[in-house]
């Protein structure tokens, strides 16, 4: 078997279910790449970019945290808290979210737990923004057009 049977699910939906040749995802210890034949693994994900590569296409997605599980027989499952394809991210909204989080962080008064929440929110929106900008020149498979405004 030379491919990974991959499923990316969030509580809301199944975001991606494909056979892949490789998968890179952001874990607590850094970006890891899973290739066919990987040994069984369970790892925690951090907000970041997920790169799924199949024989024909590449998928770039944003994940906001969760778990990756590699099983025997090249089965990989990601249980994500939230996930979006790069073309699904609304740049305008991501920008607003980032500004809001930055503002909240600046005016912050409260316990350390709340601070962590605000900081995570900022990190998430920053990553989102980064992903959507990075892939702006790519074509959106839904509309056939790039999201970059020229």
């Amino acid at each position, binding site marked *: 078997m030379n491919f990974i049977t991959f*499923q990316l*699910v*969030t*509580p*809301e*939906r*199944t975001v991606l279910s494909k056979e892949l040749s490789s998968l890179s995802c952001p*874990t*607590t*210890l850094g970006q*890891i790449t899973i290739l066919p034949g990987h*040994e*069984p*693994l*369970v*790892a*925690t994900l951090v907000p970041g970019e997920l790169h799924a590569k199949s024989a024909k296409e590449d998928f770039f997605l944003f994940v906001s945290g969760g*778990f990756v*599980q590699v*099983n*025997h027989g090249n089965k990989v*499952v990601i*249980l994500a808290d939230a996930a979006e394809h790069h073309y699904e991210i609304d740049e305008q909204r991501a920008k607003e979210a980032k500004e809001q989080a930055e503002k909240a962080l600046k005016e912050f008064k409260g316990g350390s737990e709340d601070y962590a929440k605000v900081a995570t929110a900022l990190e998430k929106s920053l990553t989102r923004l980064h992903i959507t900008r990075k892939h702006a020149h790519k074509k959106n498979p839904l509309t056939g057009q790039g999201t970059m405004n020229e």
Partner: protein
Amino acid sequence: MPGIKELKTRIRSVTSTRKITHAMQMVSAAKMRKNQTAALMSRTYSSLAWELINRLGRIKLHDTGEMEKDISSLSDHDLKEFEAELMASKLMSVFPKATKTGVIIISTNKGLVGGFNTNLINKLREIETANESFEQVAELLVMGRKAKDYAVRYNKRLVADFPKSDNWTPIESIYALAKMATDLYLTGQYRQILIIYSHFVSTLTQTASIKQLLPFTQIHNLRAAPKKDEEENTLNELEKENIAEEEELEGLPEASLEEYLFEPSPETVLKHLVPRIVESQIYQAVLESDASEHSARMVMMKNATEAAGDLIADYTLTYNQLRQNKITTELSEITAGKIALE
């Protein structure tokens, strides 16, 4: 035989009832669609999560006893971390001396859903009748007004009553319930935490189901438990499912169950994973229950609307017959009177 006037009032009243039930049917149908999609969409997530924890449930973590020993040497921050790790491993183990059972029941707030709530209660009674001591050891955590009413009326041991939103249940609203269930189990007085909810099969079928929420290691323990274990005989269905699941797991090479690599460490991963899984399981039960509720109500209201229609047809027929009789009588009286005058 009711009189003509009476029939007329009845027809009018049934007609307005039908209008109401029809309106409720439409409302339920709209809610049903929304809730059904939500329940089905998140099913993959929760079943994958459940599968994951059941696989991991077989891995032995640190011995709890061993972990407790070196607690004094830890700093405050470490202590916090340590407690979280301990929690994760405790949730996966059984407490052999524990007697109590926690039961979470997810019911509806409102009625007019047919046998929905009765089925849930019957499920509870089934375990009660099968285990003599169960009633004494069962503690209820209810979500939804109907289950609370039941617990109060029959003097059950009600531990907590969580409000259920009538519209959309956001995941945040079940955090409290998940936390409480976890905390209860961690006290070590509970041998298991069950959840009773209505599983959504289709618009026409919903089945009341029982699921063991905690501990996660049920697969091991059911078989390892001695035969006199009451639960083993009674939770037959549950057990059958588990055995099927177990066989499925056993079919895999042994290594796959033991040799998971954890990053950064098993404790850290489980610390994050375990609470998420408890939450996602409860949330899924709530979603299934919501989908079932609206489907059941939609069907009930549809039946009611149809029944009202039949009733109106019946009444109208009787009404017309009576009216015709009356006309015939009057006519014959008039004719008779006319003949008498001639």
